[in-house]
């Protein structure tokens, strides 16, 4: 119901919707053309061929757009906390994290997801970049990425309850995930460790992409699943902690 209302609202303001949709498509296409042109000349990047690098880019987009589609509510959580209106949501028979995370579903992201999935599948299978077995493993790790993204967004909402700061934190997350547009092997070891254990961009995007290409070890699969589980556990604990400290100051 919440999603439906958000979708109706976005489609009703059609001019803005068209501009946002156009922007998303233009951004994707321009980056795609850039990557294609560059990789056409260099042939490999960090040991990956052109098709593999593009697959990394496509997986980045799939994860990123899916996360934006599902958890856009985070961007609208701060006014709820500042105004104290979040009280009303706490009274509803829903999980306390429902409104902060799922309170706004971006239908424009959903519209871009459909052609993106179609192109991704066509690109992967036609270039024989993955087989059905690897694709199945990818789907499991993709779901694990969404759980990890859920945990991270919930953590940011928790920080928002404590400090009312959210905008820059969520954009720091977005900028860090942007680092995984390219294979994260291009970064130095220290940066890779930060991207694995602090804001686990590697697990979010690089691990599913590598699983798809069949180059992920079983240790990688178990390790990434463990980190996702730990993030979820600590995020839920942290959320419980901050809810006890929610003061409803402005209401």
């Amino acid at each position, binding site marked *: 119901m919440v999603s439906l209302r958000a979708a109706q609202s976005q489609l009703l*303001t059609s*001019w*803005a*919707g068209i*501009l*946002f949709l*156009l*922007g998303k498509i*233009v*951004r994707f296409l*321009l*980056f795609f*053309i*850039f990557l294609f*042109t*560059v990789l056409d*000349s*260099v042939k490999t*990047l*960090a040991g990956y061929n052109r098709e593999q690098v593009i697959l990394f880019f496509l997986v980045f987009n799939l994860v990123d757009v899916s996360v934006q589609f599902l958890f856009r509510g985070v961007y609208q959580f701060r006014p709820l906390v500042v105004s104290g209106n979040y009280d009303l949501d706490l009274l509803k028979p829903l999980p306390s994290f429902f409104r902060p995370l799922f309170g706004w579903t971006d239908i424009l992201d959903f519209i871009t997801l459909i052609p993106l999935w179609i192109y991704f599948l066509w690109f992967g299978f036609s270039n024989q970049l993955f087989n059905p077995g690897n694709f199945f493993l990818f789907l499991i790790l993709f779901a694990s990425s969404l759980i990890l993204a859920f945990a991270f967004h919930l953590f940011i909402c928790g920080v928002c309850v404590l400090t009312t*700061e959210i*905008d*820059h*934190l969520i*954009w*720091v997350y977005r*900028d*860090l995930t*942007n*680092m995984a*547009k*390219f294979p994260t092997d*291009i*970064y*130095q070891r220290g*940066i890779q460790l930060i991207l694995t254990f602090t804001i686990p961009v590697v697990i979010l995007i690089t691990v599913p992409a590598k699983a798809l290409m069949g180059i992920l070890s079983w240790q990688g699969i178990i390790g990434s699943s463990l980190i996702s589980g730990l993030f979820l556990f600590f995020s839920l604990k942290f959320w419980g902690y901050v809810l006890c400290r929610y003061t409803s100051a402005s209401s």
Partner: protein
Amino acid sequence: MRKYFQLAKITFEEYLTYRLNFVLWRFRSLISFLTLFFFWLAIYSNRNEFLGYQKAQMLAYVVGIAILRSIVLGSRSVDLGGQIRSGELTRLILWPVSMFTFWFSRDLIDKILNILFTVIELGAVLIIFKFPFYFPQKPETYFSFGLLVVLSLFLYFFLSFVISVTAFWTEEVWATRWLFGTIFLEFFSGAFFPIDVLPSWLQKIIYLTPFPYLVFFPLKIWLEQISGIMAIRAIFICSIWLVFFYWLAKILWQKGAKNYGAYGG
């Protein structure tokens, strides 16, 4: 003049009040820089020249992007659109200040603070990675570069102002700004990668817009990859765009101010 100095001072104090916001903003800028930096380092890992750029030139281009983002694209006038929609503009137009100078004073402080931190951050990165930064050989290059940067600074200000004042007629100013002031601006200005690595058909389209004069051409001048005649041509075309956007901003502001209903106020 003193009142604009006071405005600049207030803007500076705002930054000091919301220090965490500023720190996180600088951190974000650093992440964007590092992403591009490592991407190009990986491209040049087994070659010294790529699509007409030496390794030092390309890395200088990436550093240049970060610096010009601070000097040219650093801005507070983006807030104007929101103030028009919220009605907060009413308070401002009652003040004895010119709107253009008001916003430019705020922009200036934003630019000064950002450039200060950018130089420190990039200096640290360059020292850590010990890579050779490209400095122009000819003295006149510094003059052409400086002149074009000043022109592009004003060009961006008026361009951004034009986008903001569309808020007088539409509620969708954020969508307009996102498309033209973020997506087109960042890709077409060369703020992600040099435009001349793109296919020639796309370059021709991009050169018809004002965006390449904001980042790409100043950096091409710095890298001494265009001739003196081409540099003069770039400065001339940038000046034409500047006059056009100055005129457009004036006209739109006058028409918009008459149209202003202060609905949110």
